[in-house]
């Protein structure tokens, strides 16, 4: 693990390379760039304070992304109201029925934890071990989460 000349853990070397992934993860959860930037900034400060908790040899990326995900969940909980817009569109069960789904819209309507699982696995290409570390579940549990989320997009999907 990289350390500075004074013996402290080198934050820039450890976490710096993962800040962009952190921002992108926050954006995937919060879907708001300003909130995502705030979340990654706050997560970095928390990571800095907890850097000593990162065990020797443990990968920093899932550890930091887990902090980001928790920070985003906290931000969501702070919102004292939640809104579900009901636009004049066909109902969800109709939308997901055919192969010609609007994948963008379908992803946008997924629960945030489902979106996070898909984002980590399909977009960031994290291995299931790291997806599980971010989600706080075992690799097997991560695989199930990803599969269930994907199945919401394609009900007839069979896992590879």
């Amino acid at each position: 693990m990289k350390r500075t000349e004074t013996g402290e853990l080198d934050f820039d070397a450890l976490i710096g390379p993962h800040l962009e992934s952190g921002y992108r993860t926050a954006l995937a959860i919060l879907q708001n760039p300003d909130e995502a930037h705030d979340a990654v900034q706050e997560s970095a400060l928390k990571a800095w304070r907890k850097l000593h908790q990162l065990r020797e040899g443990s990968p920093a990326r899932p550890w930091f992304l887990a902090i980001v995900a928790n920070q985003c969940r906290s931000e969501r909980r702070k919102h004292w109201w939640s809104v579900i817009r009901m636009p004049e569109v066909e109902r969800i069960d109709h939308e997901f029925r055919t192969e010609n789904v609007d994948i963008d819209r379908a992803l946008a309507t997924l629960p945030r934890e489902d979106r996070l699982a898909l984002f980590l696995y399909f977009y960031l290409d994290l291995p299931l071990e790291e997806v599980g570390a971010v989600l706080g579940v075992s690799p097997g549990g991560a695989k199930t989460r990803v599969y269930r989320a994907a199945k919401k997009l394609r009900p007839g999907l069979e896992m590879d």
Partner: protein
Amino acid sequence: MEKLRSEIRAAFEREQAAHPPITALRQNVVATVNAHRRPTRNFQWVALTAALVLGILVVFGLMSTRFARHATMQAHPQSSPVASPLADYGPPPAGVPLVYVQDPRHDGWLIGFDWAGKPRGTVKMPQPLDTNRMSQAPDGSVFGISPNGKGGYTEFLDVQGNRIPMDPSLSDWPVNANLIWADDGQHLCGIWYSPRGWALITRLATKSPTSVPVAIDPDGAIVRSGVIGVSVVACSIRSDRAIITRDVYGAEEHIWLVRISDGKILSHRTYAANQLSNIVASPDGALIVEDSAKASGQIAQAAPSTIIRRTSDMSVVLTLDASIGVIGFNSDNTMALVYTSPWASGVATHMALVEVPTGKVLWRYDGSQEFAGFLAQPNGKDFAVMLKGTADSTMHPSVSVVLVRSDGSTTVIPGSYVHL
């Protein structure tokens, strides 16, 4: 799976491409972090001092926030009425919707403010007048007097303070029928039970009513229960619709959408006991709200959300957190006044103005006063919100009046007045 993988990846890429990170993200974040050096054991006293200073700053910051809010929302926070700046504004102008409050200096005088917050007229009520429960028509064109406080109006006065002659046949009608103003500002509506069954009554203020039977209780179970709790919560003469509810704690709750002209039940919805705290409707009957019992502070299991529905098809318009309760709607149903902390006597009420189509919060009130009532601007978008001191539990509390605009701006009417 591979096809889905590429589709999902492409979708996320489109989403991410729209909001790339700032160019110097890493440098900025690392610089910020480096500016927050982790304290070492040797400098614990520094951390302690900093924490104390920060604590003091936070306390002062919170206090200043409250002061600032009071400055904008509580022009006159004192609980006792103060003299109004002027005394007699003359006869109210005809055809101008006004918000009325009582002049604290003159018994029986009502001051009418227009929706810009300007005093426009004084109504001098005849004395003595038992005004235990007086209410104004939505536009302020007439006042109803309900001596027993149960909603039945026994007399009406015009804006000159003159009693309006009543139709003699009205004496045959129950004064206890819970009457509400219809959306035209002219009619009153109520529901009444007689041995012949339930009837929806509609009348011009002082004229003999029309009555149509409504089969809301075909097997008589509600009447037999002993606790009836049936009332009209919306009455739209314009759209020929009324909303009747049975809203009783501990019992199954009901909403009926009824056609006024013939009493036909157009839809009926029921709820398990203790799931809702309140059922609210827009004045035109187009929207109803299922306020979750959580919004009243209920700890036990309750409806998971507060939901606004269209009555035409009962589709969901907006879902709010269960802790939020809708108080009412403005005239075109684009705005909802909500409370964000349980509305309880003696406790400050936190409120917000929410744009119904989007859920956007346009105004919030987190001050120390208690909600005392509201009026929706006739044919407009604004609200007049009455706020009172939490210690004032009188029937006619001293209130300050805040006009809340649909853009979130507010006008506080100077002075304290007495609530009707």
